[in-house]
């Protein structure tokens, strides 16, 4: 963390338009979540630094409070897209199963899997 605190601002000064991607923030400890959000907040307050940061996480209470008001994409609100992606993947996986096990009619099972997934993809 200490290294990143020094390294990132210096990098951002030298290299403009950098993208920072912070994935799975909710999977960190509460302490780390606090630290990271605080560090990013100070970067954002640093005038003259041109960069963008993308957080990906579940909608946990602390994170939601800290990122309130920031632009967000809620996958929960994009269910039609998520369901289509799930369907596409399930179809692909089922085609492979059909081929492997010589099973004939899987359409009903496919639809059931997509419906029951409720927009959650866990591989």
């Amino acid at each position, binding site marked *: 963390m200490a290294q990143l605190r020094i390294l990132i601002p210096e990098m951002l000064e030298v290299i403009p338009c950098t993208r920072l*991607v912070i*994935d799975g923030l909710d999977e960190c400890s509460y302490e780390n979540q606090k630290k990271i959000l605080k560090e990013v907040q100070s970067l954002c307050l640093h005038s003259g630094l041109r960069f963008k940061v*993308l*957080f990906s996480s*579940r*909608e946990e209470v602390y994170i939601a409070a800290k990122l309130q008001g920031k632009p967000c994409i809620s996958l929960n609100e994009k269910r039609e897209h998520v369901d289509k992606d799930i369907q596409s993947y399930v179809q692909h996986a089922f085609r492979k199963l059909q081929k492997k096990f010589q099973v004939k009619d899987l359409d009903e099972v496919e639809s059931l899997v997509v419906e029951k997934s*409720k927009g959650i*993809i866990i591989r």
Partner: protein
Amino acid sequence: MDAEAVSFDIVEAQVWRVKMEEEVKRREAEAKPAQLKHSIAWLAVDDALQESDLERRSDRHHRGTCEWVAKVPQMTSWNTDDFKEPVLWLKGIPGAGKPYNLRTLICPHYFRQERNVLLYLEQSSRSSWYYDLLVLL
């Protein structure tokens, strides 16, 4: 005569100062590419490894999926190089596991574009942070 000598000294000092300032600016400008080169060398990133890692991350998504994300207005705005709001939050369903692997969600669209440095921070399975630094020059 003394007054004349003093004014001459002042003018000379001023000229010297301007010259030194210009010299410093010139050296700083010259040093920047070298500094960047040294920083990258210090980071010890292997180009070949980076490229294959990027391929691997980009191709993990099933063809045709995740493409809708690039068209969401918040995403296109985030991907614009400006001084506007830097933060974007991609949020999943509460308490239900991460619906998408972020790398596969955005890799195909964004990491292929011309970017200087990509710093990807992700929690490792052993609860200590590791970061992947992809340097694309």
